[in-house]
């Protein structure tokens, strides 16, 4: 199972439709401070069903929609689409390619689609859990996890172990 393509539109600083094709092996994302790299990571998390706005550095889910700059007005919707290949049949669905989309409107209304077919958030997360790769079909390593492991607060370290179990 591979993440073949990622399309981001209206999500945080990616106001214009942006496409990233990923291949096997290692893809590096580089650029200056504040240019949007972590936003890409958050777009992937969000599309796979992350419901905690705080994890995505927002106060409310609506904070994820591009909220404008001096030159550009805010937009009304954020959309992220992930396309996975499914040659090994890891995803419990009868397709060779699986496209997962998530949309959020300013009204607070959300849409979820699997292969362009509307579904519920639950269907997306079930699909991901169904890969047997834990609650997420992906792992993200970031500085705050390194700090939790190194923390002088034993509870933080234990929490990391409990999450893995």
């Amino acid at each position, binding site marked *: 199972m*591979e*993440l073949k393509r990622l399309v981001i539109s209206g999500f945080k*600083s990616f106001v214009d439709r942006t496409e990233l094709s990923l291949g096997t092996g*290692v893809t590096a994302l580089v*650029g200056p401070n504040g*240019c949007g790299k972590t936003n890409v990571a958050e777009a*992937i998390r969000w599309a796979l069903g992350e419901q905690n706005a705080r994890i995505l550095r927002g106060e409310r889910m609506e904070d994820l929609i591009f909220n404008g700059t001096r030159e550009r007005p805010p937009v009304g919707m954020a959309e992220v689409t992930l396309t996975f290949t499914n040659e090994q049949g890891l995803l419990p669905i009868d397709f060779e390619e699986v496209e997962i989309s998530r949309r959020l409107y300013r009204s607070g209304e959300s849409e979820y689609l699997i292969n362009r077919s509307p579904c519920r958030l639950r269907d997306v997360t079930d699909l991901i859990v169904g890969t047997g790769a834990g609650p997420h079909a992906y792992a993200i390593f970031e500085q705050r996890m390194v700090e939790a492991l190194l923390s002088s607060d034993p509870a933080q370290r234990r929490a990391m*172990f409990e999450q893995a179990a």
Partner: protein
Amino acid sequence: ARTQFLETFDAVQQNFRSIFERLFEGGYADIRIEEGVDPLEAHIEIVARPRGKRLSRIELLSGGERALVAIGLLFAFYLVKPSPFCLLDEIDAPLDDMNIGRFTALVKELSERTQFAIITHNKRTMEIADCLYGITMQEPGVSKVVSVRFGGDGNGGEPE
């Protein structure tokens, strides 16, 4: 819950010991559960002995040594239930050149079975990429993907 925790702990411990040996080229590290207490409440100690040095609790190691040990432990967790896709967001920041080399060698090897996306500012980390995307904000506040380079042959420089 206790049994599951202990089983996971054993798996993580085994992975951690072998990953550490690769990352530190020798030396030894371990994770230990405080004895005599309910495992679900116990302290978990991380000890490491970089090659030639004494065994210490992680609190006594240098900034870069701690980061490398923690990265090894994150991969030890990960290998218990590997996912098809793994994203690393700038975890290489405290590492010196030698340690970046060991870190990237480990990632390169794991990438035979796992797809990796690595966010980094480090030129040596970029060198192992099969594919490189540059992200910029030429228009303030607006992100744009500006370049794609294939072939991790050391030609990928930060395209800013």
